């Protein structure tokens, strides 16, 4: 269903998850190291990358950072430690989501599908917010006539926020709508993603005007 780049150094985990994901209908390219993975990325052009954090050589977070430099490819981190430091670093590096080992293949599949899911394309409209133009039919976002390269998650977050301009949305609401988390989850995912979107659409990311933080609540898209 989706072509996945899966980087995992542990052979049995790699084989087992590759097997399981393949059974879910995905095309999986698995690699054992970050270097090999980055090479495969250029060769295969996958739709999504799943990275184990602890890798020999360059680790999963560094791989994520390098991918982000060139590509709006969605990234899911696979962490065995569940350490907050790993998660924070991963989110700062630009990961869209993370799962903690041991993970059930079904859960991983759901996350993959959520991350990959394109925004609802049935509504054909185009909204203009100052020099920011969001074209919902072509799923293109331009700022001052320049195309912005948003990851699918970032795009979905922006669409979700702009769908109801001026209305404050809680982080948990965004988590379930954008990330499709069924359990109450880690709000840092939202915060990190908002930071990335702001970096792309705001004139002054340090003083955001389009996406406002509503203290004690969540976020709000404020059209200029």
């Amino acid at each position: 269903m989706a072509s996945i780049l899966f980087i995992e150094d542990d052979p049995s985990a790699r084989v087992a998850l590759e097997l399981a994901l393949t059974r879910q209908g995905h095309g999986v390219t698995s690699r054992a190291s970050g270097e090999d993975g980055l090479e495969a990325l250029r060769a295969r052009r996958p739709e999504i990358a799943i990275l184990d954090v602890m890798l020999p050589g360059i680790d999963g977070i560094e791989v994520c950072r390098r991918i982000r430099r060139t590509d709006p490819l969605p990234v899911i981190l696979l962490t065995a430690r569940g350490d907050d430091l790993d998660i924070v670093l991963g989110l700062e590096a630009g990961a869209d989501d993370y799962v903690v080992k041991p993970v059930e293949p079904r859960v991983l599949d759901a996350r993959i599908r959520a991350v990959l899911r394109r925004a609802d394309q049935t509504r054909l409209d185009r909204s203009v917010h100052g020099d920011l133009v969001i074209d919902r039919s072509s799923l293109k976002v331009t700022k001052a006539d320049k195309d912005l390269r948003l990851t699918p998650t970032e795009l979905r977050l922006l669409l979700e926020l702009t769908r109801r301009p001026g209305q404050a949305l809680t982080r948990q609401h965004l988590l379930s709508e954008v990330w499709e988390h069924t359990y109450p989850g880690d709000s840092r995912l939202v915060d990190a993603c908002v930071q990335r979107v702001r970096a792309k659409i705001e004139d002054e990311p340090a003083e955001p005007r389009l996406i406002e933080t509503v203290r004690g609540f969540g976020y709000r898209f404020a059209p200029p």
Partner: protein
Amino acid sequence: MIGLRLRLTAAFTAVALLAALLASGISYVLLRRVMLHRAQYTVLTDVRKTLTRQVPDELPPDVTPLIGAQLEDALEAVPGRKAAAVPMRLDGGVNLPPRNKLDVPVSTEFAMRAMRKLVFQRVIRDGTPYLLVGTRLDGYVTTSEEPQRTVPPMVYVSASLSRESADLRLLTNALVVADALALGSAIVLALLATRGVLRPVRRLGVAARALGDGDLETRVEVRGRGELADLARTFNDTADALERTVTELRVMEAASRRFVADVSHELRTPLTSMIAATDVLAEQAATGADGDGDGGAARLVADETRRLGLLVEHLIEISRFDAGAAVLVLDDVNVLDAVAATLAARGWRERVTVDGPADLFVRLDPRRFDVVLANLAGNALKHGRPPVSLRFARADRAGVEGVEVVVTDRGPGLPDDLIAVVFDRFVKAEAARSRSDGSGLGLSIARENAVLHGGTLEAANDPDGGAMFTLWLPAGPEEDHA
């Protein structure tokens, strides 16, 4: 620190004041004595000299008034002095000078004493001090018949000491001014000196506070010798020891944390493979046509692997609490939404009745809140009987805003001996049960999560029957609601 400084200053000032007062008191007393002695000596010498010079050893008859007047004139030559000469009685009695002749009255006793010796007395009259001198003459010749005609008179002199008194007042004023100045400068000096003395103490205090705040490399400079230097040295030694111990503890703590992290990593990775693989196996068995018995076995392995995974997860979670590695990821959460999400995610929506306000927002860690709610609801569903109800409301405890969640069931309730230990690890309601779905750590983890939030989790039996678990969490730091 202020108290010590104040006391030192007070003591210093008191000592200085005492010294000043003592010095001025002593000098006052000495000066007064010298002054009075000199004044008295002058008067007495004058009297003595005048009498000696003016009265010859032999007198012509009946000149007593004459010579008396002459003596009075001579003795009154000095201002402030008054003199009275009275005839001496030879019958043992005394004549007193007429009233108002002198500035002070002469007592009979004084006159009697003056008959024998040159005597004086200081007398205060109307606030003015006087020196009263009285004497007779000696060494004169008289006749055996009618001796009283040729006896020289007795003489009384009153000398005003008002000048000495004024001088003493002047001296007193000067001393008072000097003492006041001494007091003032003593206070200033004391403040300066105590600041100097207390500076090491204050430095020690600052260092101790810094040490208390966790700056373990704090040391104080050891200057000079004496008690303060000893104290500084002791402080440094203590800080050394503390730093060593804390460093060791930190190393140990870091090692144990790393161990937990390593263990979790080492366990989780193979578990990931096992879960993924058994999942595939179970699905293959369920859908494939390999045979009938294999499907059950594969499913069993898959379930047990998942349980093993849960147990490992719980163990890791508990050890993270023990290591103090658990941290809160706070978010502003609508309690009703969170409860609904927790129940919906586990398919319990129909089995638990929820009651609470829809607009209650609390700042907490949503993942941990979910864990606690799932544990409480799951526990009630598993061990109690329906209907299971979950009520929540705003509740303040000890002035702290918070939210209270009460989960009750209509089951038999908790046995009395279990209530006290229900949150302990690996405590299960039915000890005899050979197979349990839970890890035995669920309620412990729930309680740890509540405590991590600064809240409480308590177990009790509902008076109406059934178990009742009460969770209370603070609403979060005040500034986050601003």
